[in-house]
């Protein structure tokens, strides 16, 4: 079948949709980062490493559990590793200058990338998603594949789940309270160490989930996390440090911008997200939805 020539309007419309899909994915990664950053003050540079780990765990589990089983188990397994890392490494650095934990996670990012390269090889591995998900839904809206819509649906579920947990449960309320004032929370008798560990695990769970989803869309290779981490940081900065809705919004915005740029100036799709970051920081130094004084 021959495709039809399309007008520029259609092309823009398509890229708006598509940009939002990609943006939703950036947001999922960025939310995990943001959670950890808000409560523990740790800039988790190893987030991309955990993301890759999630994808590779799913790849190794798939022969036994199938795609759906792997989708459930791999993020949990990744979160378990995350909890171990928090308990034995990161916890020692709370209370020190943030640069300490940053250097630690930065080194960890290299270790995780090399570990995946050592275990699973430098070459991409063929990660297969169920055939039902890989079909485009219609020939004209061919970029709306089952997999991409499934991804968006899952992001919506994960994000609403996250906000429900934060808004309604005792754990969530404590996390939010801790983000505002950890010292007072501790004085009130909350086990802050445990809270941080669980919160870290939760953030890494989101990284693992993003990893499984990414592996279905991109080639699964050791560098997969490194190539996705920068957009997530930009999403956080654009959205505003300390604000989870801001992170979500930031992710969608840069996805959209990158999609639209491809229509007019394709070689600048990467540069555009940094341009946006620059402009936002000049005009709204705290990011679009950042709250005054929260982390200062």
């Amino acid at each position, binding site marked *: 079948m021959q*495709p039809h020539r399309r007008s520029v309007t259609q092309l823009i419309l398509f890229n708006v949709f598509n940009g939002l899909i990609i943006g939703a994915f950036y947001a999922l990664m960025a939310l995990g980062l943001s959670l950890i950053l808000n409560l523990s003050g740790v800039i988790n540079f190893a987030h991309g490493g955990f993301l890759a780990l999630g994808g590779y765990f799913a790849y190794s589990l798939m022969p036994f559990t199938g795609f759906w089983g792997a989708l459930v188990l791999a993020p949990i397994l990744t979160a378990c590793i995350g909890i171990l890392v928090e308990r034995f490494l990161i916890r020692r650095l709370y209370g020190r200058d943030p640069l300490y934990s940053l250097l630690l996670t930065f080194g960890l990012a290299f270790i995780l990338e090399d570990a995946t390269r050592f275990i699973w090889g430098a070459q991409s591995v063929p990660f297969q998603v169920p055939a039902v998900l890989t079909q485009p839904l219609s020939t004209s809206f061919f970029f709306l594949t089952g997999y991409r819509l499934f991804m968006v649906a899952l992001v919506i579920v994960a994000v609403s789940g996250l906000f429900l947990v934060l808004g309604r449960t005792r754990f969530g309320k404590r996390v939010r309270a801790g983000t505002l004032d950890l010292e007072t929370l501790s004085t009130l008798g909350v086990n802050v160490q445990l809270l941080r560990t669980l919160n870290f695990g939760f953030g890494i769970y989101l990284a693992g989930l993003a990893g499984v989803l990414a592996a279905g869309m991109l080639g699964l290779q050791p560098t997969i996390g490194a190539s996705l981490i920068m957009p997530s940081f930009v999403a956080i900065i654009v959205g505003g440090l300390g604000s989870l809705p801001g992170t979500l919004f930031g992710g969608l915005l840069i996805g959209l911008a990158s999609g639209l740029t491809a229509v007019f100036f394709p070689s600048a799709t990467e540069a555009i997200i940094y341009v946006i970051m620059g402009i936002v920081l000049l005009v709204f130094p705290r990011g679009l939805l950042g709250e005054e004084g929260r982390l200062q």
Partner: protein
Amino acid sequence: MDGRLFHRALGRRTLLKVGLAAGAVQIASPFVLRARADDMVKIGFNTPLTGTYAAVGKNEQLGAEYAVAEINAKGGIDGRQVQLLVEDSTSGDVGTAVQKARKLIERDKVNFLLGNVNSAIALAMAQVSNELKTLHIVTGGHTDAITGKSCQWNVFRVCNTTAMEANSVASTLIETSGKKWYYITPDYSFGHTLQGGLEKAAGKLGGTKVGEDLTPLGTTDFSSYLIKAQSAAPDVVIFTQQGDDGVNIMKQAVQFGLDKQLHIAGAQMELEVLEGLPPEARVGTWVFEWYFNQPNVPHVAEFVAGIRKKTGKVPTARTWFGYAAAWTCALAAAKAKSLDAMKMAKALEDFELPPEIGLMPNPAAYRAGDHQLIPTLFVGNAQANGVSDPEDLFKITKTVKGPDVAASADANGCKLVWPA
């Protein structure tokens, strides 16, 4: 631990500064240093072991290691054992790669320099090797300039020029798939010259360009480019992405069903990429520069078996590049009866690789005019699953003789200048 439970305030500025610093440091990476022995002949291999070209860079290294073992088993070079020194050039940081090349030549005193996968790095390394008068075999950087406008007396290249790859596949594509082509091209020297070559080759046969997009190297999501390409309604969409980028674009194109609407093709494809794809995404018409499944060519089966024993996998074109490059060093020294770079370079001019090294249906020789190896190219289609062998993911439909697709050295703009 200083006993304080609470973290210090973390400002936006800190995050920003740190983000910038991290962006810069990502490029740097550790290097591999092997033991040295002064009585040995040394081959320095500066190849990407990290980043997007890690898989292909590693395979080139494996091929060179295999060759060095063979050379040593046959008595080494001039009775001396050969040692391979490997450095991680990184996949894209030219500055680091140049430092590593200098280190290999100046500190480790290697007799030969090999590499690189990345065209830009290969060009930069060639400047260093030329300045330091060291015989340099470019393994797998394809951009035309290496044996064209930037050619050097001391630089020889095993892999093809992008123009040779383009010329090999163009006629097949026009005949089988149509004349309107859309290009999605990685935005660096390799991509540009490959697209340029394809446009020229297609133009001669009546093919036209209906659109093009340049993608930043390391792009993960290609969907917006694919939307544009589909909208332009070409007969053929040409992907010139390599390595991880190649895996990403193929996977996404097939998920969008583009392979059912138009023909997917490109010039250079590699087994590393096909193996990284799920079976349904192994589609399209491509050029392989070397392929392991050549049942009627002598010596190939032994080479494949040997590599399989060493690595558990079949050799790829990259393995062969590394293998042929390391053997070229030994053969050059043997023919020149010297380790002097200029004498060896002279000896390699119009030098034909012996069949057990060439491993191709037709003879492969380094052309005197520009030091380009003129080998055989393999045109064909990717296949979802191997029939006789699970790794047999490419079906050769045509073998192309190098001389038929290579422009003359003069036409490529190469003028070799020898030192006085």
